[in-house]
């Protein structure tokens, strides 16, 4: 069981900011989230499946967005944070 925490920007799409998940990988977790909040589809990831530019996924504090990415196993993981980079101007 992994605790998933979402940043404030995602409140526009889902009422939950924190929930528990049994998803085995980051990809499965994102798919679960997109099923629950269909408007999030293609907003965290584009249609090729890649994370959008400013989305960051942290697994137990480690940013896996650029490295292990969506295939990262969540077995034994305690927390996943889905955040957006501070950007703009």
């Amino acid at each position, binding site marked *: 069981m992994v605790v998933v925490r979402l940043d404030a*920007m995602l409140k526009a799409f889902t009422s939950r900011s924190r929930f528990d998940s049994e998803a085995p990988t980051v990809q499965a977790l994102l798919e679960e989230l997109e099923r629950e909040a269909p*408007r999030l589809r*293609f*907003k965290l990831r*584009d*249609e*090729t499946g*890649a994370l*959008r*530019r*400013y*989305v960051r996924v942290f697994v137990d504090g480690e940013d896996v967005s650029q490295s292990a990415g969506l295939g990262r196993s969540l077995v034994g993981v305690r927390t996943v944070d889905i955040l*957006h980079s501070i*950007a*703009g101007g």
Partner: protein
Amino acid sequence: MPENRVRVLVGTRKGTYIVESDRRRRGWKVHPVAHAGWDVFHVTADPRAPGTLYAAVNSGFWGPIAYRSTDWGKKWKEIGTPLTPTKKERPSPFDRGDSPSPPRPVVNLWHFAAGHASEPKTLFVGVDPHMLFRSDDRGDSWQPVAGINEHPTKKQWNPGFGGPCLHTILIDPRDPRRMYVGISAAGTFRSDDAGEHFRPVNQRVHAPFLPQPYPEVGQCVHHVTLDPADPDTAYRQDHGGMYVNRHGMEGNWQRIGKVAGAPKDDFGFCVASAPQAPGRAFFVPLTGMARTTPSGGLQVWEWSEKSRRWRTLMSPKRFPGDFGVQREGISADALDPAGIYVGTTTGQLVVSPDTGRTWQLVPYQFPAIHSVEAVA
């Protein structure tokens, strides 16, 4: 809604604005911003359904998102956003072009166009990368238009500085099957079978950045408009100059930007025409290097087909400065006399209610303006 309203739909670097006046077009009300914070490349009105607008929103965080309003922009609803077909969905010829595998996602929505009056639910959108999509349910779902997306010349296309975008979509008001598209940097293409097939129509348009000066494709067209009184006449602002074609884009384009009396610079991004000013086209010349207005001020020039001559509609002394104006940065309304509207990349919206005789600045500092479209 009273019929005497004039609205200007303004797409900016930081959202969508609806600017409103009466038919005199002297005082302007700016409604609260929508899509605040996001890049809005184009906002258009559907002439078949008064009050219906479409906005091409490109969010740095969420990606491209298409929106529709049915109440002149008071409320907006997210609709379908076109997606690059998956490899499974693509016929094999698709990959002979510039689409890498896995394909590049849709990066930006560039331009919406309502379909022909006889097809009231049809809508088109041009996107980066180099693609056209068609909807027959007012934007709820989209189908890629293979006739242009898989064009045999696609290997010869390149991105313009704004990316590989399909930014101009023109439907012949006399014939729903005839349409034109403009693509950077590929040029203009014509279809006579509702998009099943397209052929390049760029004859004698200069491509100064290519080894061959007058290629079949590869031109960096910036914007094109049809003459409302004669849809066989097209006015074109290209990277390679200002042009007119009088034969449905067939045969040679004439470079009017080089005739006697033309603006010193025939570079620019935008061009507009007006139903109540037939045979006339409005251009904003820019310097080729800086992409800003020459001679120290904003300028609008008019080309007349009747006299085959140019005249300036605005002295550079009227609004001094170095202005940028993008490809959707000029528009004209349908009133008599025609109103002309220019939006700048520094957020000025300049209006002429009398086809260029007088000009006023809308007293509101907008974010950088990508597009203006007048509805009246």
